[in-house]
């Protein structure tokens, strides 16, 4: 009975979550796909929008898709690592400026980012002149930029999580003669897989949907990410004409995220309890 209540509740929330998405699906299937269609059920079902999207000369969707996944995977992996290092130091070590540093990490994220675009141009104009491989129109420059945000909310998330891992574990290891590096890699990391997985997913989604910087950074149609490319599809006066394709693209965008989630899910829900008990 109790279990049934849980199912009912979750189903209601799922309905809320999926309601607008059904609308997008309907628009994607609707041959006259439009943002203004009033119907949840499409007036006809066809995969035209999808095929148009995948065969479009104007919108190299497959390239965008690949670019996005590549950038998101690489950047989120690198920033996860940086973030984890910092979280470990913030949680396990006591040093001057620790609380201030934590607060600063939080506050720095609150400044409106788009004002910073002027400075980003300033920095990368020089970088483009000196090191073209990391300049504008390169994926690597954009990734460097993304690493600037590696320390931030995610560091907080992991730090909070690390705080809940009993400290006796690393103390025991220290007594056994392990170095801090060994403790980090052999003791801590295996224990925190759930939150690592959650953070990885969050970082992945964050990079996938990043728009502001990617818009000014990648200007070749071929080098765009999904977020930027798709924005272009409905920007200006092409909004209506492309909405069906756009809806199809929106749905496809969810595919990598859901895949990453499926891959990480087992770490999210299984890892810790067993690990903690064993430790």
């Amino acid at each position, binding site marked *: 009975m109790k279990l049934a209540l849980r199912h009912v509740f979750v189903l209601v929330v799922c309905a809320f979550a999926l309601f607008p998405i059904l609308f997008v699906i309907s628009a994607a299937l609707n041959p*006259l796909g*439009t*943002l*203004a*269609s009033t119907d949840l059920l499409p007036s006809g079902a066809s995969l035209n929008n999808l095929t148009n999207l995948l065969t479009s*000369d*104007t919108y190299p969707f497959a390239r965008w898709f690949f670019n996005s996944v590549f950038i998101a995977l690489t950047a989120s992996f*690198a920033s996860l*690592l*940086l973030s984890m*290092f910092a979280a470990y130091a913030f949680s396990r070590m006591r040093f001057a400026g620790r609380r201030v540093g934590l607060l600063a990490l939080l506050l720095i994220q609150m400044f409106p980012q788009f004002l910073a*675009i*002027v*400075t980003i*141009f*300033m*920095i*990368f*104009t*020089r*970088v*483009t*002149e*000196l*090191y*073209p491989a*990391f300049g*504008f*129109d390169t994926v690597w420059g954009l990734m*460097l930029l993304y*690493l*600037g945000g590696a320390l931030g909310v995610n560091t907080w998330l992991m730090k909070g999580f690390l705080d809940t891992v009993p400290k006796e574990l690393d103390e025991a290891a220290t007594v056994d003669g392990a170095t801090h*590096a060994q403790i*980090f*890699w052999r003791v801590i990391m295996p224990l925190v897989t759930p939150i690592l997985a959650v953070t990885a997913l969050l970082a992945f989604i964050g990079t996938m949907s990043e*728009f502001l910087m990617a*818009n*000014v950074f990648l*200007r*070749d*149609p071929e080098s*765009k990410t999904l977020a*930027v*490319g798709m*924005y*272009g*599809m409905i*920007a*200006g*006066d*092409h*909004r*209506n*004409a492309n909405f069906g394709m756009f809806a199809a693209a929106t749905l496809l965008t969810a595919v990598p995220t859901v895949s990453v989630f499926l891959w990480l899910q087992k770490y999210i829900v299984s890892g810790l309890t067993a690990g903690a008990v064993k430790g």
Partner: protein
Amino acid sequence: MRMRALGVAALATLAFSATACGDNGTAQPSAAPSAASSGPASAPADKGNGKLVIWADPSRVTALKPFADQFGTENGVTVEVKEISKDNQQTFLTASQQGSGPDIMIGAHDWIGNLVQNGAIDPVTLTEEQKAAFPPIAIKAVTFDGQIYGAPYAVENVALIRNTKLVPDAPATFDEVVEKGKELKKAGKVKEVLCLPVTQKGDAYHVYPLFASAGGSLFGSTASGDPDPKKVLVGSPESIKAFGKLKDLGEKGDGALKTSITNENYIVNFAAGKCAFLVSGPWAMADVKKSGLSYDVTPVPAFKDGKPATPFVGVQTFFVASKGKSKALAQEFVANYVTNKDVAKALYDADPRPPALTAALQDVQASDPDAVKFMDAGKDGLPMPAIPEMQAIWEPFGIAETAVVKGGDADKAATAGQKAIDGSLKN
């Protein structure tokens, strides 16, 4: 672990040094680039010679590419067409200022005032012959402070598009449009009287012909006939009367103007037969044609005993960036290549907007009579004011429009709009 940490640290060093350079670079902007180009590490791309960079918005990139390549082949240079999806004008200004902007920028002519005050674009010299090849309104639009600041390539304005099955004859006045629309709605043949986007925030662009026909105006004019930013007329008695007219057409009146009709749905509703009249521009035609409706394009008619219903005219323009690295190439492209009939015609084929070049328009006429009809509807239109002050108008005007459409008091709305505009212009 160390290895990874180190790799990261290495990258970090690089990033750090890069920042330091950025800081430096602004201190001596002129010395740096030329010195850099002699350095061994700098790619030839940085020299600017032999390379032309064009920035456009996504819908134009594909259309431009073949011509850019052709120009490149003819002149033995490489041409890159880059795409910016959002905030094009501001991105162009920021990038230009910092030295990583393009050589040529494509945008609407009403950017000119702002681009000029930022020293971002150069005047373009067109020969008398070249100027004569454009309709006067296109040249007027790209002229700012007595100088021509770009080569026009497409002219856009709204017109009245009507479903000829429901309304076979073009209405002579706008009053007839509303009457006929109401009649059809009553008969259940359509759901809406008129498809003209109002939205919750107002849309000054689409409603302007009606506003003008009812006697309203935005600016007074200077001695030379240009809009005068010192004389904002949104709250003038004539404009208040015009807002009153919009109120009569609004939700509490005829129901011809509605906030629920938005830029997302107005074209689609017409295409789906939900309204017999659509006020829109050439960009609507793809959808309208796809729907298979029989339609006709005529100028937006004036109110009975009203002034002419002049639409805003926007001219898509190629600009030469002041801080571009290949200015001679950019001038060559803009002044002598864009003004070529074949190029204009081909640009039209790739992306059908009425070409600005008269000769190209005539060529197009055979296959697409709409282009000429739109051009005709806009020939007496008002080029969108290119003065930077225009940016202060759009929003307060739109809000006043929404207020009266929802049944608000015209006097109050117009006066508040005028006050808001005056307040921001005095800053």
